[in-house]
Protein backbone atom coordinates (compact mmCIF):
# COMPACT_ATOMS: atom_id res chain seq x y z
CA UNK A 1 0.00 0.00 0.00
CA UNK A 2 1.27 3.41 -0.88
CA UNK A 3 3.07 4.69 2.22
CA UNK A 4 1.96 8.27 1.79
CA UNK A 5 -1.67 7.24 1.46
CA UNK A 6 -1.24 5.09 4.55
CA UNK A 7 0.19 8.04 6.46
CA UNK A 8 -2.60 10.42 5.50
CA UNK A 9 -5.36 7.94 6.12
CA UNK A 10 -3.98 6.92 9.53
CA UNK A 11 -3.46 10.48 10.63
CA UNK A 12 -6.40 12.39 9.21
CA UNK A 13 -9.04 10.25 7.58
CA UNK A 14 -9.26 7.40 10.06
CA UNK A 15 -8.20 9.63 12.89
CA UNK A 16 -7.96 7.52 15.99
CA UNK A 17 -9.82 9.91 18.26
CA UNK A 18 -12.61 11.07 16.00
CA UNK A 19 -13.34 7.91 14.05
CA UNK A 20 -12.17 5.12 16.33
CA UNK A 21 -13.00 6.74 19.68
CA UNK A 22 -9.71 5.75 21.23
CA UNK A 23 -7.59 7.79 23.59
CA UNK A 24 -10.60 9.56 25.09
CA UNK A 25 -9.37 9.54 28.69
CA UNK A 26 -6.28 11.66 28.07
CA UNK A 27 -8.32 13.57 25.55
CA UNK A 28 -10.59 14.79 28.31
CA UNK A 29 -8.00 15.02 31.02
CA UNK A 30 -5.03 16.61 29.37
CA UNK A 31 -6.54 19.12 26.97
CA UNK A 32 -7.33 21.87 29.43
CA UNK A 33 -3.98 23.50 28.73
CA UNK A 34 -2.14 23.69 25.42
CA UNK A 35 1.30 22.95 26.94
CA UNK A 36 0.23 19.72 28.57
CA UNK A 37 -1.49 18.69 25.33
CA UNK A 38 1.71 19.13 23.35
CA UNK A 39 3.74 17.30 25.98
CA UNK A 40 1.35 14.37 26.11
CA UNK A 41 1.19 14.19 22.33
CA UNK A 42 4.96 14.00 21.98
CA UNK A 43 5.21 11.32 24.67
CA UNK A 44 2.48 9.26 23.00
CA UNK A 45 4.14 9.40 19.58
CA UNK A 46 7.38 8.13 21.02
CA UNK A 47 5.81 5.36 23.10
CA UNK A 48 3.51 4.12 20.35
CA UNK A 49 6.29 4.05 17.77
CA UNK A 50 8.63 2.12 20.01
CA UNK A 51 6.03 -0.25 21.43
CA UNK A 52 4.40 -1.01 18.07
CA UNK A 53 7.63 -1.80 16.27
CA UNK A 54 8.76 -4.00 19.15
CA UNK A 55 5.45 -5.83 19.34
CA UNK A 56 5.45 -6.37 15.55
CA UNK A 57 8.84 -7.99 15.88
CA UNK A 58 7.70 -10.02 18.87
CA UNK A 59 4.69 -11.32 16.98
CA UNK A 60 6.35 -12.26 13.72
CA UNK A 61 9.71 -13.39 15.04
CA UNK A 62 8.62 -15.17 18.22
CA UNK A 63 4.91 -15.91 18.45
CA UNK A 64 4.21 -17.02 14.89
CA UNK A 65 7.14 -19.45 14.59
CA UNK A 66 6.14 -20.97 17.93
CA UNK A 67 2.44 -21.15 16.96
CA UNK A 68 1.50 -19.09 20.00
CA UNK A 69 -0.63 -16.46 18.27
CA UNK A 70 -3.24 -16.61 21.01
CA UNK A 71 -0.71 -15.20 23.46
CA UNK A 72 -0.75 -11.98 21.46
CA UNK A 73 -2.82 -9.89 23.87
CA UNK A 74 -0.90 -10.83 26.99
CA UNK A 75 2.54 -10.46 25.48
CA UNK A 76 1.70 -7.16 23.84
CA UNK A 77 0.33 -5.56 26.96
CA UNK A 78 3.27 -6.76 29.04
CA UNK A 79 5.68 -5.51 26.40
CA UNK A 80 3.99 -2.12 26.39
CA UNK A 81 4.08 -1.89 30.19
CA UNK A 82 7.73 -2.90 30.23
CA UNK A 83 8.63 -0.48 27.46
CA UNK A 84 6.98 2.43 29.23
CA UNK A 85 8.75 1.54 32.49
CA UNK A 86 12.03 1.40 30.65
CA UNK A 87 11.48 4.75 28.95
CA UNK A 88 10.58 6.32 32.27
CA UNK A 89 13.71 5.01 33.98
CA UNK A 90 15.85 6.03 31.03
CA UNK A 91 14.45 9.56 31.02
CA UNK A 92 14.77 9.88 34.78
CA UNK A 93 18.46 9.04 34.62
CA UNK A 94 19.57 10.71 31.44
CA UNK A 95 17.32 13.68 30.91
CA UNK A 96 15.72 15.05 34.08
CA UNK A 97 14.37 18.09 32.25
CA UNK A 98 12.53 15.97 29.70
CA UNK A 99 11.43 13.64 32.48
CA UNK A 100 9.88 16.53 34.33
CA UNK A 101 7.98 17.61 31.26
CA UNK A 102 6.82 14.21 30.02
CA UNK A 103 7.30 11.97 33.00
CA UNK A 104 3.88 12.44 34.55
CA UNK A 105 2.11 11.27 31.43
CA UNK A 106 4.08 8.12 30.90
CA UNK A 107 2.33 5.89 33.45
CA UNK A 108 -0.99 7.07 32.02
CA UNK A 109 0.02 5.92 28.58
CA UNK A 110 0.37 2.28 29.62
CA UNK A 111 -3.36 1.85 29.97
CA UNK A 112 -4.07 4.10 27.05
CA UNK A 113 -6.20 2.20 24.57
CA UNK A 114 -4.32 3.80 21.68
CA UNK A 115 -1.06 1.98 22.24
CA UNK A 116 -2.58 -1.48 22.41
CA UNK A 117 -4.89 -0.71 19.49
CA UNK A 118 -2.10 0.42 17.16
CA UNK A 119 0.05 -2.56 18.14
CA UNK A 120 -2.79 -4.95 17.34
CA UNK A 121 -3.87 -3.10 14.21
CA UNK A 122 -0.44 -3.58 12.66
CA UNK A 123 -0.94 -7.32 13.04
CA UNK A 124 -4.55 -7.60 11.92
CA UNK A 125 -3.94 -5.43 8.86
CA UNK A 126 -0.91 -7.52 7.98
CA UNK A 127 1.47 -4.59 7.59
CA UNK A 128 5.12 -5.07 6.73
CA UNK A 129 7.72 -3.57 9.05
CA UNK A 130 7.95 -0.35 7.06
CA UNK A 131 4.18 0.03 6.92
CA UNK A 132 4.07 -0.63 10.66
CA UNK A 133 6.55 2.17 11.26
CA UNK A 134 4.56 4.59 9.11
CA UNK A 135 1.29 3.63 10.77
CA UNK A 136 2.83 3.85 14.23
CA UNK A 137 3.96 7.42 13.64
CA UNK A 138 0.93 8.63 11.69
CA UNK A 139 -1.71 7.41 14.14
CA UNK A 140 -0.28 9.10 17.26
CA UNK A 141 0.50 12.15 15.13
CA UNK A 142 -3.21 12.33 14.40
CA UNK A 143 -3.86 11.91 18.11
CA UNK A 144 -1.49 14.75 18.91
CA UNK A 145 -3.12 16.92 16.26
CA UNK A 146 -6.49 16.35 17.90
CA UNK A 147 -5.09 17.06 21.35
CA UNK A 148 -3.63 20.38 20.22
CA UNK A 149 -6.73 21.49 18.33
CA UNK A 150 -8.93 20.48 21.20
CA UNK A 151 -6.78 22.22 23.79
CA UNK A 152 -6.89 25.50 21.89
CA UNK A 153 -10.67 25.27 21.55
CA UNK A 154 -11.14 24.41 25.20
CA UNK A 155 -8.94 27.26 26.35
CA UNK A 156 -11.21 29.59 24.48
CA UNK A 157 -14.33 27.84 25.78
CA UNK A 158 -13.44 28.53 29.36
CA UNK A 159 -14.36 32.17 28.98
CA UNK A 160 -17.74 31.43 27.43
CA UNK A 161 -21.20 31.24 28.88
CA UNK A 162 -21.99 27.54 28.82
CA UNK A 163 -25.19 26.10 30.33
CA UNK A 164 -24.46 24.64 33.76
CA UNK A 165 -25.10 20.94 33.02
CA UNK A 166 -22.71 21.03 30.10
CA UNK A 167 -19.87 22.76 31.88
CA UNK A 168 -16.64 20.82 31.98
CA UNK A 169 -16.65 17.50 30.16
CA UNK A 170 -20.04 17.38 28.39
CA UNK A 171 -19.36 20.47 26.30
CA UNK A 172 -16.02 18.94 25.39
CA UNK A 173 -17.88 16.01 23.86
CA UNK A 174 -20.13 18.31 21.87
CA UNK A 175 -17.01 20.01 20.49
CA UNK A 176 -15.58 16.60 19.64
CA UNK A 177 -18.77 15.76 17.78
CA UNK A 178 -18.53 18.90 15.69
CA UNK A 179 -14.88 18.17 14.96
CA UNK A 180 -15.91 14.68 13.84
CA UNK A 181 -18.27 16.22 11.30
CA UNK A 182 -15.52 18.55 10.07
CA UNK A 183 -12.97 15.77 9.65
CA UNK A 184 -15.39 13.38 7.99
CA UNK A 185 -15.15 15.70 4.99
CA UNK A 186 -11.66 14.32 4.39
CA UNK A 187 -13.03 10.86 3.71
CA UNK A 188 -12.64 10.99 -0.03
CA UNK A 189 -9.04 12.25 0.02
CA UNK A 190 -7.11 9.06 -0.74
Amino acid sequence: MNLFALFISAMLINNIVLTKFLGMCPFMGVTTKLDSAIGMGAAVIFVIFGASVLSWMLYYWVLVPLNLEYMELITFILLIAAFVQFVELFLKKNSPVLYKQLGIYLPLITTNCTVLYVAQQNITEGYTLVQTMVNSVATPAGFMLMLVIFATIRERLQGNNIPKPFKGNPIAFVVAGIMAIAFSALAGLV
Partner: protein
Amino acid sequence: MDKNSSTYKTILLAAVCAIAGTCLAAANAVTKPVIDENAIASVKVTLEQFFPGAEFSDVTSKYVTKDYPLVDAAYEAKDKGYIFTCHNTGYSSSGFKFIIAFSNDGSIVGYQGLEQNETSGKGSLAFEQAYIDEVTALTSSDTLPLISGATITTTAVGTAASQAEAIFNKIEGISADASSTAASTATASASASTTTTSGATASSSTTSGASNKSSSSTTTSDTLGTGDYASANASCTASSDGVYACKATGFSGASVTATITVKDNAIVSIADLTGQDKGDGVGDAWYSDASAFNGATLDSSIDALSGATYTSKAVKGMAAAALKAAAGK
Protein backbone atom coordinates in the same frame (compact mmCIF):
# COMPACT_ATOMS: atom_id res chain seq x y z
CA MET B 1 9.97 -16.55 52.21
CA ASP B 2 10.14 -12.81 52.44
CA LYS B 3 7.46 -11.25 50.28
CA ASN B 4 9.71 -8.52 49.04
CA SER B 5 12.71 -10.57 48.01
CA SER B 6 13.53 -10.71 44.32
CA THR B 7 13.34 -14.48 44.17
CA TYR B 8 9.82 -14.43 45.52
CA LYS B 9 8.81 -11.81 42.96
CA THR B 10 10.34 -13.71 40.08
CA ILE B 11 8.74 -16.96 41.18
CA LEU B 12 5.36 -15.30 41.58
CA LEU B 13 5.54 -13.64 38.18
CA ALA B 14 6.68 -16.85 36.55
CA ALA B 15 3.92 -18.83 38.27
CA VAL B 16 1.25 -16.33 37.23
CA CYS B 17 2.46 -16.36 33.64
CA ALA B 18 2.63 -20.14 33.59
CA ILE B 19 -0.92 -20.52 34.90
CA ALA B 20 -2.12 -17.88 32.45
CA GLY B 21 -0.38 -19.66 29.60
CA THR B 22 -1.92 -23.03 30.50
CA CYS B 23 -5.43 -21.58 30.76
CA LEU B 24 -5.01 -19.92 27.39
CA ALA B 25 -3.68 -23.05 25.76
CA ALA B 26 -6.64 -25.01 27.13
CA ALA B 27 -9.17 -22.43 25.92
CA ASN B 28 -7.45 -22.37 22.55
CA ALA B 29 -7.65 -26.13 22.21
CA VAL B 30 -11.36 -26.03 22.94
CA THR B 31 -12.32 -23.13 20.72
CA LYS B 32 -10.03 -23.40 17.70
CA PRO B 33 -11.84 -26.34 16.03
CA VAL B 34 -15.17 -24.56 16.44
CA ILE B 35 -13.76 -21.38 14.92
CA ASP B 36 -12.30 -23.23 11.94
CA GLU B 37 -15.60 -24.98 11.34
CA ASN B 38 -17.49 -21.70 11.48
CA ALA B 39 -15.17 -20.18 8.92
CA ILE B 40 -16.29 -22.73 6.39
CA ALA B 41 -19.89 -23.06 7.58
CA SER B 42 -20.81 -19.52 6.70
CA VAL B 43 -19.88 -19.96 3.06
CA LYS B 44 -20.58 -23.68 2.85
CA VAL B 45 -24.04 -23.16 1.41
CA THR B 46 -22.64 -21.03 -1.40
CA LEU B 47 -19.76 -23.44 -1.98
CA GLU B 48 -22.11 -26.41 -2.18
CA GLN B 49 -23.83 -24.76 -5.11
CA PHE B 50 -20.81 -25.28 -7.30
CA PHE B 51 -19.51 -28.61 -6.05
CA PRO B 52 -22.33 -30.37 -4.24
CA GLY B 53 -21.21 -32.95 -1.74
CA ALA B 54 -17.53 -32.09 -1.96
CA GLU B 55 -15.19 -31.77 0.99
CA PHE B 56 -14.27 -28.14 1.48
CA SER B 57 -11.36 -26.54 3.24
CA ASP B 58 -10.26 -22.97 3.63
CA VAL B 59 -6.93 -22.52 1.91
CA THR B 60 -6.79 -18.73 1.96
CA SER B 61 -3.67 -18.40 4.08
CA LYS B 62 -1.91 -20.91 1.87
CA TYR B 63 -2.49 -19.37 -1.53
CA VAL B 64 -3.84 -15.84 -1.28
CA THR B 65 -0.78 -13.65 -0.75
CA LYS B 66 -0.55 -9.87 -0.66
CA ASP B 67 0.10 -9.94 -4.42
CA TYR B 68 -3.59 -10.61 -4.92
CA PRO B 69 -5.32 -7.86 -2.94
CA LEU B 70 -8.64 -8.29 -4.70
CA VAL B 71 -9.04 -11.92 -3.68
CA ASP B 72 -10.57 -12.32 -0.21
CA ALA B 73 -10.64 -16.06 0.31
CA ALA B 74 -9.82 -19.32 -1.40
CA TYR B 75 -11.51 -22.66 -0.76
CA GLU B 76 -10.53 -26.04 -2.05
CA ALA B 77 -13.16 -28.57 -3.03
CA LYS B 78 -11.19 -31.76 -2.66
CA ASP B 79 -10.38 -33.39 -6.01
CA LYS B 80 -12.92 -31.16 -7.71
CA GLY B 81 -11.74 -27.61 -7.92
CA TYR B 82 -11.16 -24.29 -6.26
CA ILE B 83 -13.46 -21.43 -5.33
CA PHE B 84 -12.44 -17.83 -4.75
CA THR B 85 -14.31 -14.91 -3.25
CA CYS B 86 -13.19 -11.57 -4.64
CA HIS B 87 -14.05 -7.93 -4.30
CA ASN B 88 -13.51 -4.74 -6.25
CA THR B 89 -15.08 -1.33 -6.73
CA GLY B 90 -17.13 -0.74 -9.84
CA TYR B 91 -19.32 2.23 -10.50
CA SER B 92 -20.81 2.34 -7.01
CA SER B 93 -18.31 3.40 -4.35
CA SER B 94 -19.48 0.72 -1.93
CA GLY B 95 -17.90 -1.94 -4.09
CA PHE B 96 -19.04 -5.45 -4.82
CA LYS B 97 -18.14 -9.02 -3.90
CA PHE B 98 -18.44 -12.09 -6.05
CA ILE B 99 -17.54 -15.73 -5.98
CA ILE B 100 -15.92 -17.62 -8.84
CA ALA B 101 -15.37 -21.37 -9.03
CA PHE B 102 -12.91 -23.30 -11.19
CA SER B 103 -12.98 -27.03 -11.66
CA ASN B 104 -9.75 -28.95 -11.83
CA ASP B 105 -9.88 -29.12 -15.62
CA GLY B 106 -9.51 -25.35 -15.83
CA SER B 107 -13.00 -24.34 -16.80
CA ILE B 108 -15.01 -21.79 -14.85
CA VAL B 109 -17.94 -23.71 -13.39
CA GLY B 110 -19.52 -20.98 -11.34
CA TYR B 111 -19.74 -17.23 -11.02
CA GLN B 112 -22.10 -15.36 -8.75
CA GLY B 113 -22.38 -11.91 -7.24
CA LEU B 114 -22.45 -11.99 -3.42
CA GLU B 115 -22.94 -8.32 -2.61
CA GLN B 116 -23.32 -5.50 -5.05
CA ASN B 117 -24.80 -2.05 -5.28
CA GLU B 118 -24.31 -1.31 -8.96
CA THR B 119 -26.72 0.74 -11.04
CA SER B 120 -29.66 -1.46 -11.87
CA GLY B 121 -29.97 -2.08 -15.57
CA LYS B 122 -26.35 -1.09 -16.15
CA GLY B 123 -23.62 -2.27 -13.80
CA SER B 124 -25.92 -4.84 -12.24
CA LEU B 125 -25.92 -6.68 -15.57
CA ALA B 126 -22.50 -7.96 -14.56
CA PHE B 127 -24.25 -10.12 -11.97
CA GLU B 128 -27.23 -11.28 -13.97
CA GLN B 129 -27.86 -14.61 -15.65
CA ALA B 130 -26.82 -13.60 -19.17
CA TYR B 131 -23.37 -12.56 -18.05
CA ILE B 132 -23.12 -15.50 -15.66
CA ASP B 133 -23.72 -17.84 -18.62
CA GLU B 134 -21.04 -16.04 -20.61
CA VAL B 135 -18.49 -16.35 -17.81
CA THR B 136 -19.21 -20.00 -17.01
CA ALA B 137 -18.44 -20.89 -20.62
CA LEU B 138 -14.85 -19.68 -20.20
CA THR B 139 -11.69 -21.26 -18.84
CA SER B 140 -9.12 -20.01 -16.38
CA SER B 141 -6.89 -18.64 -19.13
CA ASP B 142 -9.55 -16.32 -20.54
CA THR B 143 -10.25 -12.72 -19.62
CA LEU B 144 -13.83 -11.93 -18.77
CA PRO B 145 -15.78 -10.10 -21.46
CA LEU B 146 -17.04 -6.54 -21.09
CA ILE B 147 -20.65 -5.48 -21.33
CA SER B 148 -21.20 -2.27 -23.25
CA GLY B 149 -22.92 0.26 -20.98
CA ALA B 150 -21.41 -1.48 -17.97
CA THR B 151 -17.76 -1.25 -18.86
CA ILE B 152 -16.59 0.12 -15.53
CA THR B 153 -18.25 -2.66 -13.57
CA THR B 154 -17.27 -5.49 -15.89
CA THR B 155 -13.68 -4.24 -16.13
CA ALA B 156 -13.54 -4.26 -12.35
CA VAL B 157 -15.00 -7.78 -12.25
CA GLY B 158 -12.51 -8.87 -14.87
CA THR B 159 -9.53 -7.46 -12.96
CA ALA B 160 -10.53 -9.24 -9.76
CA ALA B 161 -11.34 -12.45 -11.64
CA SER B 162 -7.97 -12.39 -13.38
CA GLN B 163 -6.28 -12.38 -9.97
CA ALA B 164 -8.35 -15.40 -8.95
CA GLU B 165 -7.39 -17.03 -12.26
CA ALA B 166 -3.74 -16.29 -11.63
CA ILE B 167 -3.88 -17.98 -8.23
CA PHE B 168 -5.80 -20.93 -9.66
CA ASN B 169 -3.38 -21.35 -12.54
CA LYS B 170 -0.49 -21.21 -10.13
CA ILE B 171 -2.09 -23.94 -8.00
CA GLU B 172 -2.88 -26.07 -11.03
CA GLY B 173 0.57 -25.45 -12.42
CA ILE B 174 1.91 -27.24 -9.41
CA SER B 175 -0.51 -30.12 -9.61
CA ALA B 176 -0.34 -30.22 -13.42
CA ASP B 177 3.34 -31.22 -13.28
CA ALA B 178 2.57 -34.15 -11.02
CA SER B 179 -0.48 -35.39 -12.90
CA SER B 180 0.99 -35.04 -16.40
CA THR B 181 3.88 -37.38 -15.64
CA ALA B 182 1.56 -39.80 -13.89
CA ALA B 183 -0.62 -39.92 -16.97
CA SER B 184 2.33 -40.20 -19.36
CA THR B 185 1.20 -43.56 -20.69
CA ALA B 186 -2.36 -42.44 -21.31
CA THR B 187 -1.43 -40.29 -24.28
CA ALA B 188 -4.84 -39.88 -25.79
CA SER B 189 -6.66 -39.72 -22.48
CA ALA B 190 -8.82 -36.59 -22.41
CA SER B 191 -8.18 -35.85 -18.76
CA ALA B 192 -4.40 -35.86 -19.19
CA SER B 193 -4.36 -33.44 -22.09
CA THR B 194 -6.89 -31.13 -20.54
CA THR B 195 -5.01 -30.99 -17.24
CA THR B 196 -1.82 -29.89 -18.92
CA THR B 197 -3.54 -27.37 -21.11
CA SER B 198 -5.25 -25.82 -18.11
CA GLY B 199 -1.97 -25.65 -16.24
CA ALA B 200 -0.04 -24.04 -19.07
CA THR B 201 -1.30 -20.47 -18.77
CA ALA B 202 0.51 -18.99 -21.70
CA SER B 203 0.47 -22.19 -23.63
CA SER B 204 -0.45 -21.78 -27.23
CA SER B 205 -0.59 -25.51 -27.70
CA THR B 206 -4.36 -25.44 -27.45
CA THR B 207 -4.38 -24.38 -31.07
CA SER B 208 -1.71 -26.77 -32.30
CA GLY B 209 -2.60 -30.15 -33.72
CA ALA B 210 -3.98 -32.95 -31.56
CA SER B 211 -0.94 -35.12 -32.07
CA ASN B 212 1.39 -32.37 -30.93
CA LYS B 213 -0.80 -31.67 -27.95
CA SER B 214 -0.80 -35.22 -26.73
CA SER B 215 2.85 -35.71 -27.53
CA SER B 216 3.90 -32.69 -25.51
CA SER B 217 1.88 -33.95 -22.56
CA THR B 218 3.62 -37.31 -22.59
CA THR B 219 7.20 -37.63 -21.63
CA THR B 220 8.71 -40.00 -24.14
CA SER B 221 7.48 -39.72 -27.70
CA ASP B 222 8.53 -36.24 -28.86
CA THR B 223 11.90 -35.40 -30.31
CA LEU B 224 13.75 -32.15 -29.89
CA GLY B 225 13.05 -31.34 -33.51
CA THR B 226 9.34 -32.03 -33.56
CA GLY B 227 8.34 -31.16 -30.02
CA ASP B 228 6.27 -28.04 -29.42
CA TYR B 229 8.17 -25.73 -27.08
CA ALA B 230 6.62 -22.47 -28.25
CA SER B 231 5.26 -21.80 -24.79
CA ALA B 232 8.76 -21.83 -23.32
CA ASN B 233 9.80 -18.90 -25.56
CA ALA B 234 13.32 -20.21 -25.93
CA SER B 235 15.89 -18.17 -27.81
CA CYS B 236 19.62 -18.53 -28.33
CA THR B 237 22.32 -16.15 -29.39
CA ALA B 238 25.64 -17.40 -30.60
CA SER B 239 28.41 -16.17 -28.35
CA SER B 240 31.26 -17.96 -30.10
CA ASP B 241 31.59 -20.76 -32.61
CA GLY B 242 29.28 -23.54 -31.51
CA VAL B 243 28.54 -21.94 -28.15
CA TYR B 244 25.13 -20.45 -27.57
CA ALA B 245 23.77 -18.34 -24.70
CA CYS B 246 20.19 -19.41 -24.37
CA LYS B 247 17.23 -18.33 -22.34
CA ALA B 248 13.66 -19.52 -21.94
CA THR B 249 10.64 -19.20 -19.68
CA GLY B 250 10.15 -22.01 -17.23
CA PHE B 251 7.71 -22.59 -14.38
CA SER B 252 5.39 -19.72 -13.52
CA GLY B 253 7.27 -17.24 -15.68
CA ALA B 254 10.66 -17.90 -14.10
CA SER B 255 13.44 -17.25 -16.55
CA VAL B 256 15.81 -20.13 -17.27
CA THR B 257 19.27 -19.63 -18.80
CA ALA B 258 22.03 -21.90 -20.03
CA THR B 259 25.13 -22.01 -22.18
CA ILE B 260 24.78 -24.75 -24.78
CA THR B 261 27.72 -26.03 -26.81
CA VAL B 262 26.85 -27.65 -30.15
CA LYS B 263 29.24 -29.52 -32.43
CA ASP B 264 28.39 -31.40 -35.61
CA ASN B 265 24.68 -30.82 -35.02
CA ALA B 266 24.78 -32.54 -31.67
CA ILE B 267 24.82 -31.03 -28.20
CA VAL B 268 28.15 -31.41 -26.48
CA SER B 269 26.93 -30.21 -23.16
CA ILE B 270 24.59 -27.82 -21.44
CA ALA B 271 26.47 -25.73 -18.94
CA ASP B 272 25.49 -23.07 -16.38
CA LEU B 273 21.88 -24.22 -16.46
CA THR B 274 20.02 -22.23 -13.87
CA GLY B 275 16.69 -20.54 -13.35
CA GLN B 276 14.99 -17.81 -11.34
CA ASP B 277 13.10 -20.48 -9.46
CA LYS B 278 16.22 -22.35 -8.43
CA GLY B 279 15.86 -23.57 -4.91
CA ASP B 280 12.06 -23.78 -5.11
CA GLY B 281 12.42 -27.46 -5.86
CA VAL B 282 10.70 -27.09 -9.19
CA GLY B 283 13.39 -27.38 -11.82
CA ASP B 284 16.21 -28.11 -9.44
CA ALA B 285 16.70 -31.61 -10.77
CA TRP B 286 17.59 -30.10 -14.13
CA TYR B 287 19.72 -27.37 -12.64
CA SER B 288 21.91 -29.88 -10.89
CA ASP B 289 22.17 -32.39 -13.72
CA ALA B 290 21.48 -31.74 -17.40
CA SER B 291 23.75 -34.49 -18.68
CA ALA B 292 20.73 -36.21 -20.28
CA PHE B 293 21.25 -33.76 -23.15
CA ASN B 294 24.84 -34.67 -23.82
CA GLY B 295 25.04 -35.98 -27.36
CA ALA B 296 21.42 -35.10 -28.17
CA THR B 297 20.45 -34.21 -31.72
CA LEU B 298 17.25 -32.91 -33.22
CA ASP B 299 16.11 -36.50 -33.54
CA SER B 300 16.67 -37.41 -29.92
CA SER B 301 13.87 -37.52 -27.49
CA ILE B 302 14.64 -36.59 -23.92
CA ASP B 303 12.40 -37.54 -21.02
CA ALA B 304 10.91 -34.66 -19.11
CA LEU B 305 11.50 -34.94 -15.37
CA SER B 306 8.53 -35.72 -13.17
CA GLY B 307 7.38 -32.69 -11.22
CA ALA B 308 9.20 -30.31 -13.57
CA THR B 309 7.20 -30.23 -16.77
CA TYR B 310 7.69 -26.53 -17.43
CA THR B 311 11.36 -26.50 -16.69
CA SER B 312 11.83 -29.61 -18.84
CA LYS B 313 10.06 -27.80 -21.63
CA ALA B 314 12.24 -24.75 -21.17
CA VAL B 315 15.46 -26.79 -21.26
CA LYS B 316 14.31 -28.82 -24.25
CA GLY B 317 13.21 -25.60 -25.94
CA MET B 318 16.65 -24.10 -25.48
CA ALA B 319 18.34 -27.29 -26.67
CA ALA B 320 16.13 -27.39 -29.75
CA ALA B 321 16.74 -23.72 -30.45
CA ALA B 322 20.49 -24.14 -30.12
CA LEU B 323 20.51 -27.17 -32.40
CA LYS B 324 18.34 -25.41 -34.98
CA ALA B 325 20.52 -22.32 -34.86
CA ALA B 326 23.60 -24.51 -35.40
CA ALA B 327 21.88 -26.35 -38.27
CA GLY B 328 20.72 -23.10 -39.78
CA LYS B 329 24.23 -21.72 -40.19
